[in-house]
């Protein structure tokens, strides 16, 4: 039987170092591999549905297509033939009940578990606000996630005219949680092509983040920074109000997002 000898430390030469690294690799803790295949398939199926209409195989990143559609909608809002006007865009609504969101979307967006609005109100450590805009109506889906303390409530609407599907199939999202946005970290977390402008929502300072992807940090109620990095795929309005951080994501323009924001009750 072979007994390995403890090695000289630090490693004497490159071969010894290589051997030590190989040994170390067996003890590395990786984060659990998330389910990637189903999310990829979801994106491909969305993409090929769009691609077929153009008569060729879809091959661009989904994000480019989403933003191209967004730009087209902004330029040609009047082409939507019915509905109401918000912020220069016509918004109308599909009839019937919404289809369930694919589980891969729920998971990858860190929405948490689907609950009723009443249950979200019971579980959240704060008063849940809901848009009172008649045109938007009640949220189609409500999710509760236990982090940060007090929880996060996400109100989700599927794609609708005026709120085109993002790459993950979501039309409009309103997110609420108890936290303090750390303004010092914003700059670092925005991906290329994203711009941030200051604005006001009902007199509260707000940020309008548009044209790209971004993730964000927040602090929990004990002041600890949480790296939850909720993936944002649409333009987002974010602001604070009475200790709550509120986000409206997926509205096609700042004025449309502000309209949703002002209607929160």
């Amino acid at each position, binding site marked *: 039987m072979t007994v390995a000898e403890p090695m000289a430390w630090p490693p004497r030469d490159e071969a010894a170092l290589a051997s030590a690294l190989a040994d170390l690799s067996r003890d590395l803790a990786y984060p659990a591999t998330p389910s990637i295949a189903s999310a990829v398939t979801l994106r491909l199926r969305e993409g*090929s549905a769009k691609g077929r209409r153009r008569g060729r195989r879809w091959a661009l990143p989904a994000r480019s297509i989403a933003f191209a559609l967004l730009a087209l909608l902004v330029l040609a809002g009047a082409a939507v033939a019915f509905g109401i006007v918000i912020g220069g865009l016509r918004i109308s609504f599909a009839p019937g009940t919404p289809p369930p969101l694919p589980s891969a979307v729920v998971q990858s967006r860190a929405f948490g578990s689907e609950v009723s609005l009443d249950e979200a109100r019971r579980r959240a450590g704060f008063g849940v606000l809901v848009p009172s805009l008649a045109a938007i109506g009640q949220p189609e889906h409500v999710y509760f996630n236990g982090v940060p303390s007090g929880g996060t409530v996400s109100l989700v609407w599927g794609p609708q005219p005026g709120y085109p599907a993002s790459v993950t199939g979501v039309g409009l999202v309103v997110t609420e949680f108890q936290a303090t946005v750390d303004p010092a970290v914003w700059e670092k977390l925005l991906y290329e092509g994203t711009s941030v402008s200051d604005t006001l929502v009902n007199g509260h300072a707000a940020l309008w983040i548009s044209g790209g992807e971004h993730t964000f940090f927040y602090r929990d109620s004990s002041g600890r920074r949480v790296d939850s990095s909720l993936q944002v795929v649409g333009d987002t309005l974010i602001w604070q109000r009475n200790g709550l951080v509120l986000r409206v994501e997926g509205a096609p323009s700042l004025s449309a997002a502000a309209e949703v924001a002002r209607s929160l009750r």
Partner: protein
Amino acid sequence: MEGRPLTDAELIEEARGGDVAAYEELVRRYEELAFRTAYLVCGDADDARDAAQEGFVRAYGALNRFRAGAEPRPWLLRIVANAARNRRRAAGRRAGLALRSAQDRPSDGAAPSPEVAVLAGEQRAELLAAVDRLSDDDRRIITLRWFADLSEREMAAVLDVPLGTVKSRLSRAMQRLRAVMRGGDDRG
């Protein structure tokens, strides 16, 4: 041939014909490797997940350019690693690698082979800390080689550089790692 799982090449052929389910099977085979490789490149689990997803979506769009008979593994990893590198540049942050706790280690019961070093717990931690102190480029090449267990040829594909460049960069990175462990901070 009933019941025989399709080879990677067969799955790619099906996927080229528009069979998304065949592509999903291929992604399933490589998702863990892709995720871990992306994690080593960008150092953040959420970014790694997004990079792996984005990489596989891009690879699907590029299937027509995939050379028949080539190895899909380095090709897929290169696309995923590119997506991860872009995120790393954008995010400007990096989580340190961590060690598993002692009870989570695989207990294969076999005596270690003589050519494998046996490190004490504090040596593992010290070595890992030294890797984490390297520059991004050095850390990436060392983690891809020893932690993702890629061959030098695969690394050349992943990093999109010639094989000779991989060899020289790896050698320099190893020298600098030894310097860090000796207590110096030789970045030259």
